[in-house]
């Protein structure tokens, strides 16, 4: 099953490789990972998406807790969390089909950020379902390039 982990760590060189090294050493695969400093600059938050069964998930969180660089780990899997991801789609579209692509982008409240001779670049944020749906639709036109940031997540206000 997919798990989203939010890991608060020291904002220091080498911490990222401690975390990723540990996960791969214990035999798990990271599906996506984002890292950036938090409101407190001495700390960074990592959002890690990985596939693991319950036992594996428990083991990996315990191991991560043991890292001296780790402050806190929260499980962001489930309904009480907001998860978002940003994607950039470079969609193949000559002048004659541009409006169709723009229309799709509008439906999803995505933005056109660049226009080329034969392509449009769309910026979209959302959860996995929304980005997946857009990808499916754009595929009909041809996706020249796709970049996704990986998920970031936060617990809903009611939890705090």
């Amino acid at each position, binding site marked *: 099953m997919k798990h989203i982990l939010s890991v608060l760590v020291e904002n220091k*060189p080498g911490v990222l490789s401690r975390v990723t090294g540990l996960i791969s050493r214990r035999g798990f695969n990271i599906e996506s990972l984002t890292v950036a400093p938090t409101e407190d600059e001495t700390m960074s938050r990592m959002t890690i998406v990985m596939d693991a069964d319950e*036992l594996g998930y428990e083991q990996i969180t*315990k191991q991560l807790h043991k890292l001296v660089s780790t402050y806190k780990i929260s499980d962001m899997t489930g309904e009480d969390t907001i998860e978002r991801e940003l994607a950039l789609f470079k969609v193949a579209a000559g002048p004659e089909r541009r409006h169709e692509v723009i229309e799709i982008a509008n439906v999803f409240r995505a933005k056109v950020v660049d226009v080329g001779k034969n392509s449009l670049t769309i910026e979209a944020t959302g959860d996995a379902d929304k980005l997946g749906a857009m990808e499916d639709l754009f595929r009909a036109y041809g996706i020249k390039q796709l970049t996704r940031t990986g998920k970031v997540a936060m617990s809903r206000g009611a939890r705090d």
Partner: protein
Amino acid sequence: MMTASDPIAEYKARAISGAPFGPGSHTEKEGQTMTGAQAVIASLEAEGVDVMFGYPGGQAIKIYDALYDSKKIHHVLARHEQGATHTADGYARATGRVGVVLVTSGPGATNTVTGIATAYMDSIPMVIITGQVTRGVIGTDAFQESDIVGITMPVVKHSFLLQSTDDLTRTFREAFYIASTGRPGPVLIDIPSDLASAEMVFHYPDSVNLPSYRPTYKGNAKQIRQAINLLAQSKRPLLYVGGGVVASHACAELSRFAEMTQIPVVTTLMAKGAFPTSNPLDLGPVGMHGSKYANMAMTECDLLIAVGARFSDRVTGKLSEFAPHAKVIHIDIDPAEIGKIRDPQVPIVGDAQGILAGMIEQAEKAGIGSVGSEWFAQCCEWRKRWPFYHDEFTDYPGQIVPEVALDVLSSKLDSATSIVTTEVGQHQMWAHQHIARDTTRSFLSSGGLGTMGFGFPAAVGAKIGCPDKQVVCVAGDGSFQMNAQEMATAVINNAAVKVMILDNRALGMVHQWQKLFYNERYSSTILDPAPDFVKLAEAYNWQGERVESPDQVEGAIQRMLDAEGPYLLDVAISADQNVYPMVAPGAALDDIIGAIDLTVGGVRVSQKGAGNATKEGE
């Protein structure tokens, strides 16, 4: 149950308090302006370090220069950085203190990796200081640059790449604190050499503040009560104890708990000595080369109380058949060990010493008496039926029997005044089976990593840490050659260690597997005929002797033990001698090859459980 005169208990309490192990800020160096290198030495002095182990080089030369002025620290110059690291490890295991290593960058640092990994696997507190190239050239493949922080990341408890002299003293305090608390382990500090020459004002912190590192010591009271409830219902309880009991210094509590409940005890290699061999409740070694009776106890028990043990594959055998009837109580300070291999009914995270004390209290309250005695009687029957060895039995007549030689050695040693270390291989397993140990930290062996080349330098470190003890390394001819250069370190530092080589002129343990599982195809396991170990001993100014016939053994061992200086005794044994009993890799724990069964006339048999026995070799 700690007494005022127990230095290990005091050291443990000090470690947990977060205060430096030495004078901390209360030295004449406090407030002085000095170089980073001098501050490294001042920091070690502030931590009360009086001996350290290492090997110099270009990027450590400034620290070595500062060390030259220290009146408090004795530096032991090894002959190889791996040797230095194992020596510091042996010192740490024998004394309970943090072992300190100093080496240079590049090859000096990479040579410590096996030693660090060995300490990591066995949870031994160490601080390893490596010189590094200057900050300005890090990342440029500078001469003798290696990314030692990166290389060692999977085998350290924590590591630091020092970025500024502002962090220097705090880093040392944190390193000693992290190494010695919670589940202990090695901590590495990498020091770029420009920081070693930078000026700074020395202030040593008298406490630590590490919000991201807070080990749990106190066991949950509810879970302790649950454990006692399980015990009250149990008919066949068994204590399975590991190195955590040694690290936590919980031996007195363990003995008390076992005795009041009459629960038999099996010990892993790491726990040898933590529960006295002389206590009848001790069923001793368990697992791949454990006794048949201990393995039977594991298989038949209905409650397994694991204390500071991690269900290593060398202990469990085939997992799906491991302790199949047992509920499990798992006590460990490392939450990640709980449920890693076997899901317990009652997990208790915390320090074994306090938890066992809590269990004693609860058991008394609940009026639990000797719940284990009936079942223990059964274990004693098994012990009579399947002994490790008995006198009327010989595999190779006319040749020295390793089991007998070790029994002789054991009978001549008092574990309160001696330490036995081992290398890795058959001799290690025989030593585990036949050396009696009643005292914690009196048997040192590389359990987790199984590092050949560990035992001899570890013996040197143990002797330096405990100069009044008789320190004997039981070695294999293969392993000893992995760090034999440390004979110089021993003799020069007056570390009068004794090395007893069980010399089968083979990589015996691998040879045994080839014999049993690879159709006797002895690929690359024969070491015949070099070297002449007695001549080697003489070359290093040691005394040495070789014995080949059984009647010489006793006298030779006595001469070895009586010798004033370092002494090597080379004991010739057959290369065909197997370590028995054995659980084949992947087999169930009670499926045992080569146990001696007295009910069928004292021959080696292969047998699952107490079922039909076939004679070995038929």
